[in-house]
């Protein structure tokens, strides 16, 4: 394996487990989350939501709410001065529903009052008259002729065809099956909240939690009919995001309210609202037919994927692309035939969540690979090794050349080599009876006679950055004064650790200087979203480039002041003039030196419209997961004993934060495998709360073993790739494969439910489901 050369630099440079700049404030409670900001005289807003899930909006009567003392305003669709519709890419989502409500909980009005409680109570007094329309809740029916057409262009958000290679028929060994993934919520802990303040110049300042300040700014400005420079966004503390803060929720409502009332207006969503308000992971149905030679070499992968996009487009387009391009996994496949469709329904809006379509595709292809391994009588790991992509291959879907490094074999082998947990049969039998080691925990109703252990393995792949020809750039500014270096960046810190990564980049480039981050805002240059495993790459590169420019400028300034050649000036913590250290203050003489860089990654192109072929991605991240589970085959309960992973991270800028991303991402993968599903019936959400939307707890998570594969990317800063998404790719299919191994049950959908494990249909006494 390649070993990366150490990066020279100061304490806290690249590769160090540097401390996060926000850590102290997060411990003493002084860190200001978006809903912690309080200004005198502020008002509070509450959203009035349509019942939907599909209805004609007959009337929104506000008089009763307005009559309540303390209620200041009630805003509806009539109060939107600019664009009536917003949207991440396609602007098809009304700021307030006007004529039609397309999903349960769609905003129809916004009540502004003296207190948050009063606003919420008064919201209940706004009379929303809806006339029910036929509800389209089945994505499989969305493209039929006899269903409601939810949008002027119909019910298809995007379809993508990928065709590569020859015949997809007649392999000696073939498997065929359909797999399903449920609707997962990002379930970030800090509910949606923001504070809008009117500015004297007629503009507005919004303190908010978001993943992309400038994307929000553009949509808000359009809706307000204001030039973007009058809409100023400042990042408040973000209580997690995971894709769930890529879309607009309360932002426009608050800005409208602040401009209307001339006063600061804040809102904080209830958890039940949060579950309705932001787009979720697309539920998917994936039909696979996979053919192979008797020795296990793949001949073809045929996939038909239907994504439930819900009521509005959001990011359904690119997610359809990601699901398609990763439908054949990180494997050598001579022939690929993929059709993926993202469709409109009256279900909750689907959009970005960690993995962005690749999660669903990974569950499909990896489940099919396990079926194939079983049919071939081959070890699942050996089957994956046989087919692993290698440098010099073509990517199976896009046909893109796979450049080194592409450590697919390496992540497989290093994951498989991690130690397994002790076999329960070899340790004390009483161990199984400890409540926390028993599947089902303290609620157990057996002594563990039915507990079986299973081991499962899966491999994942996803690209980093946007891809498919989407233009991409990132701006950062660094400013050196006598006090140190300030980094000005609009990159959103959602918890992932971009702040410490950028500080580490500065220390790598400029040495051991004090470094601090200016508050992220739209006053800084465009950084793009903290999503797509891209921000460390993008902002890390921009800050690196800005630092190098800064170094030149400082050298020129100091050389002029000291009457030496610029080549005699070195910036490394202090400033060295001809080898002699001069403190920053003295060297700069009160001047502030600034440099801004705009980083542009290698360009990608859109795929060919009929075959999907093209250089659609900058590069790929690979990962392998191995899960060990104990299953009570009589109760249908599962305990994850251990998840082991080897992940291709390029280079770990901050190994501690990378591990944090990995273990956290695995916990979300475990959640999708076992417990997390936002259920709906007829378009109505059934479990909009943490009471029955079950996020894994400390009791649910088993041991996690992490091995970082660092082989250095060609383009990423210092060799870094993205880190955030891969942990959520193959962790889910690995857990399910382990359940299959323990039970022999097909478990073709996630989350796996008790009745997928316990064969109730085979039991004549069982209650029919």
């Amino acid at each position, binding site marked *: 394996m390649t070993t990366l050369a150490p990066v020279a630099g100061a304490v806290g440079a690249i590769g160090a487990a540097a401390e996060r700049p926000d*850590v102290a404030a997060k411990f003493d409670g002084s860190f200001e989350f978006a809903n912690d900001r309080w200004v005198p005289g502020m008002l509070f807003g509450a959203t009035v939501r349509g019942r939907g899930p599909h209805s004609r909006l007959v009337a929104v009567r506000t008089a009763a709410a307005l009559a309540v003392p303390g209620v200041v305003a009630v805003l509806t669709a009539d109060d939107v001065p600019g664009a009536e519709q917003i949207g991440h890419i396609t602007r098809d989502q009304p700021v307030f529903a006007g004529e039609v409500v397309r999903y349960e909980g769609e905003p129809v009005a916004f009540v502004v009052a003296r207190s948050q409680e009063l606003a919420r109570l008064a919201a209940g007094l706004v009379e929303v008259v809806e006339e029910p329309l036929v509800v389209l809740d089945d994505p499989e029916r969305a493209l039929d002729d006899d269903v409601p057409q939810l949008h002027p262009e119909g019910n298809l958000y995007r379809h993508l065809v990928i065709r590569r290679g020859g015949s997809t028929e007649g392999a000696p060994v073939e498997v065929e099956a359909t797999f399903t993934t449920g609707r997962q919520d990002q379930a970030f*802990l800090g*509910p949606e909240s923001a504070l809008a303040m009117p500015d004297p110049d007629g503009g507005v300042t919004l303190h908010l939690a978001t993943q992309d300040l400038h994307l929000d700014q553009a949509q808000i400005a359009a809706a307000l009919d204001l030039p973007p420079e009058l809409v100023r966004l400042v990042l408040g*503390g973000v*209580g*997690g995001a995971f894709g769930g803060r890529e879309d607009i929720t309360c932002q426009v409502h608050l800005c409208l309210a602040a401009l209307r009332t001339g006063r600061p207006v804040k809102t904080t969503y209830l958890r039940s609202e949060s579950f309705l308000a932001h787009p979720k992971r697309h539920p998917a149905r994936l039909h696979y037919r996979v053919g192979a030679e008797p020795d296990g070499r793949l001949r073809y992968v045929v996939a038909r994927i239907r994504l439930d996009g819900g009521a509005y487009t959001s990011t359904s387009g690119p997610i359809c692309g990601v699901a398609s391009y990763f439908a054949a996994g990180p494997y050598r496949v001579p022939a690929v035939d993929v059709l993926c469709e993202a469709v409109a329904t009256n279900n909750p809006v689907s959009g970005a969540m960690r993995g962005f379509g690749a999660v669903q595709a990974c569950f499909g292809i990896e489940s099919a690979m396990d079926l194939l391994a079983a049919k071939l009588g081959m070890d699942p790991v050996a089957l994956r090794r046989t087919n692993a992509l290698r440098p010099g291959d073509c990517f199976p879907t896009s046909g893109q050349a796979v450049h080194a490094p592409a450590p697919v074999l390496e992540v497989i082998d290093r994951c498989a080599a991690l130690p397994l947990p002790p076999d329960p049969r070899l340790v004390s039998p009483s161990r199984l009876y400890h409540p926390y080691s028993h599947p089902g925990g303290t609620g157990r109703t057996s002594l563990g006679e039915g507990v079986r252990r299973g081991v499962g393995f899966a491999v994942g792949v996803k690209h980093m950055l946007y891809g498919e020809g989407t233009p991409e750039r990132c701006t950062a500014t660094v400013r050196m004064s006598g006090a140190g270096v300030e980094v000005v960046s609009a990159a959103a810190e959602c918890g992932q650790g971009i702040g410490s990564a950028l500080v580490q980049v500065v220390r790598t480039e400029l040495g051991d200087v004090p470094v601090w981050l200016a508050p992220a805002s739209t006053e800084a240059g465009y950084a793009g979203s903290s999503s797509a495993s891209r921000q460390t790459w993008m902002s890390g590169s921009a800050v690196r480039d800005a630092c190098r420019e800064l170094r030149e400028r400082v050298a020129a300034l100091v050389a002029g002041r000291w009457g030496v050649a610029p080549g005699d000036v070195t910036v490394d913590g202090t400033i060295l003039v001809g080898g002699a250290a001069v403190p920053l203050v003295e060297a700069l003489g009160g001047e502030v030196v600034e440099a801004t860089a705009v980083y542009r990654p290698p360009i990608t192109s859109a795929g060919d419209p009929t075959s999907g072929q093209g250089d659609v991605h900058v590069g790929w991240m690979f990962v392998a997961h191995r899960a060990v589970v104990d299953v009570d085959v009589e109760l249908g309960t599962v305990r994850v004993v251990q998840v082991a992973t080897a992940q291709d991270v390029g280079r770990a800028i901050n190994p501690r934060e990378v591990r944090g991303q990995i273990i*956290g991402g695995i916990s979300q993968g475990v959640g999708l495998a076992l417990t997390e599903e936002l259920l709906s019936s007829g378009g109505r959400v059934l479990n909009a709360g943490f009471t029955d939307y079950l996020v894994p*707890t*400390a009791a649910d998570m088993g*041991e996690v073993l992490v091995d970082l594969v660092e082989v250095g990317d060609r383009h990423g800063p210092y060799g870094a790739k993205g880190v955030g998404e891969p942990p959520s790719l193959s962790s889910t299919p690995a857990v399910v494969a382990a359940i299959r191994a323990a039970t022999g049950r097909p478990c073709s959908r996630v989350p796996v439910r008790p009745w997928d494990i316990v064969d109730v249909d085979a039991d004549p006494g069982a209650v029919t489901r």
Partner: protein
Amino acid sequence: MPVAGGARGWLILGAVVEEEVEVVLGVDGVEVVLRCLPASSLLRALRDAGLTATPGGCEQGECGSCTVLVDGVSVCACLVNAGTVAGCEVRTVAGLASPDLEAAMARNGTVQCGFCTPGFVVSSEALLAGGGVPSRDEVREALAGNLCRCTGYAGLVEAVMEVARERAG
């Protein structure tokens, strides 16, 4: 008079809603007077008084973000009526985090978005106050009432184990 109904019960707006009460209690060693509605939770009363160190993630006792100690007992502040803790001593993360726990939590990478951190600090301190070295499963049980969406809990459990061992010498 308009009336709003629903899960919160029937309230005559403009009457009940506006009648604030005063609750005197200790918060992190300082006597404070919280002015709040009679139905206010301790969480809401604290936050409305500008004491925002304790975040609210769900306001229904499920996420544990708002965990505080009331006279030494850990509770979800969102589930406790503010009036019922008059005269009590409330400890929040702002007055509770001890340097060894902070260091161990930082060392183990337990802070990402940080929204759950106050609750985990309080739950961890409550467990550690019992003395001794808990087993890994006991730590997991003690922390099972606090959700973390970012870190996957491994570091949180490890940090508590480390501090317990250090304190036991």
